[in-house]
């Protein structure tokens, strides 16, 4: 039984997902000591060469799996502190993880999820086919999160966070990923059924619905991956010292300083993560 980690990276003109994947993959390889593969496209591969990170990418990832660039008219606002940009959301092909992964058991992580511990190694042998992060916790406090961070809509089911997903290849998970693909294709119909806003496609919503259906339309007492420690995109990663990530947190329009160390963390402000990519890579 092979085990490994899978990361998707499809660059757009605003976000260098390849660089994020390099940071995220390097940390995951260091702390989990597992092989890692990258799913990407030819444009991103060209950029990897052009930006001269190809040798680093080849050192970190044992396999680079090239797929066609995802086509999307899906846009979303990305914040970098108080600045915001409307950017294309290209990360829509995660439902193909089942077919693309070279591993029997796969940990699928977002490229903005940084691993600083071996906590996820506890979950490889847990008796469940699909494990997803059950909830999020905000680095500053839960008061900064809203109902829609925990549910897919005002009246909807619980939100699972597809930032981290672990799955074993078998018939049940094949059906699970096929269902996610169907939900993606029929997103508006599912929005009617589950009463969420379909304007922007979200992997978290598709995974949440698929899990809900596969669990028999219940809030089943199943295993799940650890709660995600999340730093919001209005917070800014300003420095990395040794293994400490130093942030400026936006708290009720005031700025608070704080640091996170030794804890796996989901950093939603991608631009500030890219600005500090070299510092993080040097600290590994």
């Amino acid at each position, binding site marked *: 039984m092979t085990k490994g980690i899978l990361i998707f990276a499809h660059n757009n003109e605003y976000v260098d997902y390849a660089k994020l994947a390099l940071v995220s993959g390097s940390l995951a390889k260091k702390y989990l000591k597992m092989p890692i593969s990258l799913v990407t496209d030819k444009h991103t591969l060209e950029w990897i060469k052009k930006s001269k990170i190809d040798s680093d990418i080849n050192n970190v990832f044992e396999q680079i799996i090239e797929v066609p660039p995802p086509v999307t008219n899906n846009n979303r606002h990305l914040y970098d502190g108080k600045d915001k940009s409307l950017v294309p959301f290209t990360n829509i092909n995660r439902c193909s993880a089942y077919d693309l992964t070279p591993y029997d058991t796969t940990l699928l992580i977002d490229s903005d999820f940084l691993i600083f*511990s071996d*906590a996820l*190694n*506890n*979950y*490889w*042998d*847990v*008796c469940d086919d699909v494990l997803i992060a059950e909830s999020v*916790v905000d*680095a*500053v*406090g839960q008061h900064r999160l809203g109902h829609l961070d925990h549910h897919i809509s005002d009246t909807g089911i619980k939100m699972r966070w597809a930032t981290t997903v672990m799955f074993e290849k078998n018939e049940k998970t094949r059906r699970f990923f096929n269902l996610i693909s169907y939900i993606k294709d029929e997103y508006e119909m599912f929005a009617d059924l589950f009463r969420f806003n379909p304007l922007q496609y979200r992997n978290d919503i598709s995974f949440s619905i698929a899990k809900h259906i596969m669990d028999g339309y219940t809030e089943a*007492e*199943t*295993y799940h991956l*650890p*709660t995600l*420690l999340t730093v919001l995109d209005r917070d800014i990663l300003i420095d990395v*010292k040794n293994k*400490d990530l*130093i942030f400026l*947190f936006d*708290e009720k329009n005031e700025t*608070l*300083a*704080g*640091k*996170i*160390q*030794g*804890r*796996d963390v989901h950093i939603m402000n991608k631009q500030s993560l890219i600005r500090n990519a070299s510092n993080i890579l040097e600290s590994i």
Partner: protein
Amino acid sequence: MDKRLQEALEFSKYKNTFNIQHKTLKEKADAQLTYGHNGGLFKIDQSLITFVQMLIDQDRIKNVVLLDYNNNPTLVEDLNEFKDEIFDRYFSVVNEFYASVTEMKKSRSVEKLLDL
């Protein structure tokens, strides 16, 4: 601004930074105290440690079934090995947590809290 108010606000900022760090350290300890064994997941806490030690004292050591945190039965083939693992992990995590909090309490400014 009145000096008394300014001092209070400065302390308030320090306290907010302190609380964020304390919270993330606590969550880090919580994550480290989750232990996967033979398909089950256990939260290592004082009651698990006490229960396991009690079973060992009763000579129930081989092929013991424990309920994990989802109340699923999990076979532990050798409870002594299991106990050694959870003891080691519990004390290394709690000692690290203690050292970090003690260090934080000595830092009386935001700059020192952040090692700037």
